[in-house]
């Protein structure tokens, strides 16, 4: 009839041809790439392909992966053991640590394997979900013990040994080494990720240090600033913790503050803190209903325990040897049957 009708027809025809082709190519769709070809960082999850599995009555276990290597390797150790030894399907959900609490409370996430008590969110989460409405169970310690400190690169201490302890920062001429345009006369103390407890302003004031806090706003910002300063051997004083993959890359020294004491952190002492941060005993939590839904997985996760050395070894494997977290976890599992066999429920 008309040109338009004709073209419309041919257009439609070619689309149909493509669609048919697409369908034809989809024949092996369910066998979607189990391990993606992506190399480098951990392979992207394709949980999409999972539900077709026969594990009918076994629920899918969803583990939270936070964006640091330590969290990743824990999760992949647990994932591989849960899948191979207990026959579960495990999905890894990459999520910001601050968004995970409501999710684990509701069951969108089954368990979180590495929580740092110093996170402000986590204190709240514990109070609200674990102690409060009991939608989340405390699964005990992970075994790894962390610690927040003030750090300087080693070359700073080499040059100015006084800066290894807090007294050194009382001296204006030494503190000024750290000064920037933002801080003027005082030295800059780079405070990190705002999600962490930070008493630095209190500590600085109560110890009378010539420092001024600049809030970096994110962990990445601190790391980038460190990388830059380190490359030029410039002084930098910042808030960080261990274990952290950054210690594999740079030689950092914690600044010695007055020792931690319970009195120093007592409620009555609010606003007057003048001592070091406490140790961070990392812990695990799970959704409360996991206990009934998957008792053996629950038991396994509660039993799971890594040492500092275990985690640091795996982190190094990823950071220095270029393995993916999954590969590093696999290597560790192969070597440490004695350790993980104890985690399996009897």
């Amino acid at each position, binding site marked *: 009839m*008309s040109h338009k009708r*004709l073209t419309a027809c*041919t257009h439609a025809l*070619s*689309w149909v*041809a*493509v669609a048919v*082709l697409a369908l*034809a*190519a*989809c024949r*092996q769709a369910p066998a*979607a*790439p189990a391990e*993606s*070809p*992506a190399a480098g*960082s*951990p392979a*992207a999850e394709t949980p*999409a*392909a999972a539900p077709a599995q026969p594990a009918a009555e076994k629920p899918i276990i969803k583990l939270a992966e936070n*964006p640091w*290597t330590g969290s990743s390797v824990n999760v992949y150790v647990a994932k591989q053991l849960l899948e191979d030894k207990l026959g579960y399907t495990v999905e890894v*959900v*990459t*999520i*910001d640590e*601050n*968004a*995970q609490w*409501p*999710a684990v*409370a*509701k069951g*969108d*996430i089954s368990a979180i394997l590495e929580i740092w008590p110093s996170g*402000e*969110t986590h204190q*709240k989460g514990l109070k*609200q979900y674990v102690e*409060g*409405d009991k*939608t989340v169970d405390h699964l005990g310690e992970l075994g790894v013990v962390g610690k927040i400190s003030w750090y300087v690169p080693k070359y700073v201490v080499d040059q100015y040994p006084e800066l290894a302890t807090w007294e050194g920062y009382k001296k204006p001429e030494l503190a000024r080494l750290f000064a920037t*345009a*933002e801080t003027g006369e005082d030295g800059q103390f*780079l405070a990190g990720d*705002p*999600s962490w407890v930070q008493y630095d302003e209190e500590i600085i004031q109560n110890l009378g240090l010539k420092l001024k806090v*600049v809030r970096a*706003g*994110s962990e*990445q*910002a601190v*790391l*980038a*600033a460190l*990388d*830059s300063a380190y*490359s030029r051997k410039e002084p930098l004083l910042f808030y960080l913790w261990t274990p952290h993959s950054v210690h594999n890359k740079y030689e950092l020294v914690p600044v010695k503050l007055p020792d931690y004491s319970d009195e120093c952190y007592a409620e009555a002492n609010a606003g007057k803190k003048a001592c070091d941060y406490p140790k961070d005993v990392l812990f695990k939590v799970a959704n409360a209903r996991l206990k009934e839904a998957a008792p053996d997985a629950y038991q396994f996760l509660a039993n799971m325990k890594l040492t500092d050395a275990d985690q640091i070894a795996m982190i190094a494997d990823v950071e220095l040897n270029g393995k993916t977290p999954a590969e590093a976890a696999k290597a560790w599992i192969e070597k440490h049957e004695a350790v993980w066999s104890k985690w399996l429920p009897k």
Partner: protein
Amino acid sequence: MATRSFALPILPRARSSRPWRIASVLALLAGAWLLSLLVPSLTDQFPAHWNLGLREAVDGFSRWVTSNRITSPIFVYFFDPLSTGIDAFVRLIENALLGAHWAVIIGITAIAGWLLGGWRLSLGCSLGFFLCGAMGLWTQTMQTLALMNVSVLFALLIGIPLGIACALSNRFDRVLRPILDAMQVMPAFVYLIPVVLFFGVARVPAVVATVIYAIPPAVRLTSLGIREVQPAAVEAARAFGSTRWQILRKVQLPLALPAIMAGVNQTIMMALGIVVIAAMVGAGGLGREVYLALQRLQVGRAFEAGLAIVVIAIVLDRLSEALSRIDLTQLPSRAAGRAPSWVAPLVIAGLTALCVIAFQDAFPGEWQLGLARPVDGLVRWTRDNLFFITRPLSDFITLYLLNPFRDLLRDIAPWPVMVVAVAAVGYFVSGWRLALGSAIGMFMLGWLGMWSQSMDTLSQVLVTTAITVVLALPVGILASQSDVVRRVLRPILDFLQTVPTFVFLVPVIMLFNVGRVPGIIASVLYAIPVGIRLTELGIRQVSPEAVEAAKAFGSTRAQLIVKVQLPLAKPAIALSVNQMIMMVLAMVVIAGMVGGAGLGLEAVIGLTRSETGIGISAGLCIVILAMILDRITQAWAARQR
């Protein structure tokens, strides 16, 4: 001319003369200052007890939500099924994209490109997707694409009907407009946690957050398109007794289609803008790559993922742009001038089939195109070699631009003076309505308990905008004069506009130190493409008759620019300034993540400490600042006409 003794002129309304108005405003300012001298207790700082109490209310609400999350019927019967549905839908699309052979996806894109634009578009699109595969990001690209498709679909399903309603009802339009403004300016960070509360983690909250962010352009452009349909066509339809619905369906919608398609295009671009943020709640895909790589300072890896996002953006942009360019009134002639239109698709389909037979489903790993290493090298090189320029530059900006300006706004001028001053600006560019609105807005900043943070942010935003304008105008003028410059600029601007800002945060911090400056640099990079584009467009759209006339009188090129093009392009340039401010405001939170303090940091705190109340308050303050600055610059732009 027509005699029109009855067309009565509008009588000039009695208005006080300009000097008188200036005097009264000055008097008001002086009064405010005097007041602050007399009652320093009230005016030194915004009184803490004048507080709206929003923070507590929000926190109370989110406590209620978290403790009723599992039992309340509204969740059990509404949000949960909704989440399940969305999740299933995204997974469906994801499975389809991942299940299909990679060559088929590329083939389909190629055919779509060919049908919509021709062989160049076809080749460009397929090469783009191929690049994503070659960077080892095929799976992630498909995941992001799936998420994107679903989000855009929802955004359009909601946005287009709203846009129609806005076009048909002025009242609805007036109600919806500020809400859309707020949706667009409110940082996604702020509503990420609430969205998680309601919709759980992973794909669903990502879709919801993306939809919230991407709806406004769909609504705006649909409404604009319908309102701008030639009135003659509508009148004719009316004269033939069409019902309102018939007019809409048979006349307005078809004629508004190009504008609606432009809305689709914008929606896609917006949706791609929060891919990385969506990754923070488990959305996966390319955003996750950027997010993980950044945490490990792998700039190269982040760059690759960012580049893949840019590729998707450009491919979808060009495809949807081509779609919106298809002019319904010209279809037959277009098609008539073409070779039989099934040859090329068949060729592409044939090639695709060959690839399907020859290669396995997964994108061949050996076709690796490693960009990470060179990029990492480049970053290291700039870190080691450019610092001697960037450090002094950074210090200069901090000491001589940011500090004095911040001190003035935040510390020197008492808050009543600031309120009056902003209101005065509003009064002079528009009138007492804007003045009142601005004053209320400024007051709200204090009332929300964020006065000093707001002033800090305001000073940064103004300095950043000034820098952006200074850089964008000359480049825009240059681009308007030379097609070569324009062609060279286009991919760069496209890249800057679509690459997730997160990707260049690390290098920027390395070069400029933590503090307010890296945020400023990132914001300038983000806002400058729009500035350049709109300036260029404004100048290029100056009426050719005027230019011709000027040429006929023997103007030199410089005279032509200065005496004709720039003055005539002034309204467009003023609008571009407005857009630049909005873009800079959109970056406030990002700035907060690299040491920018102010409202951005508060918003980050809101997210990272689950302090929803603080987050929402900070977000609202950003929205308020945005509205004040937007209305003032819009009014100022309108005065340039």
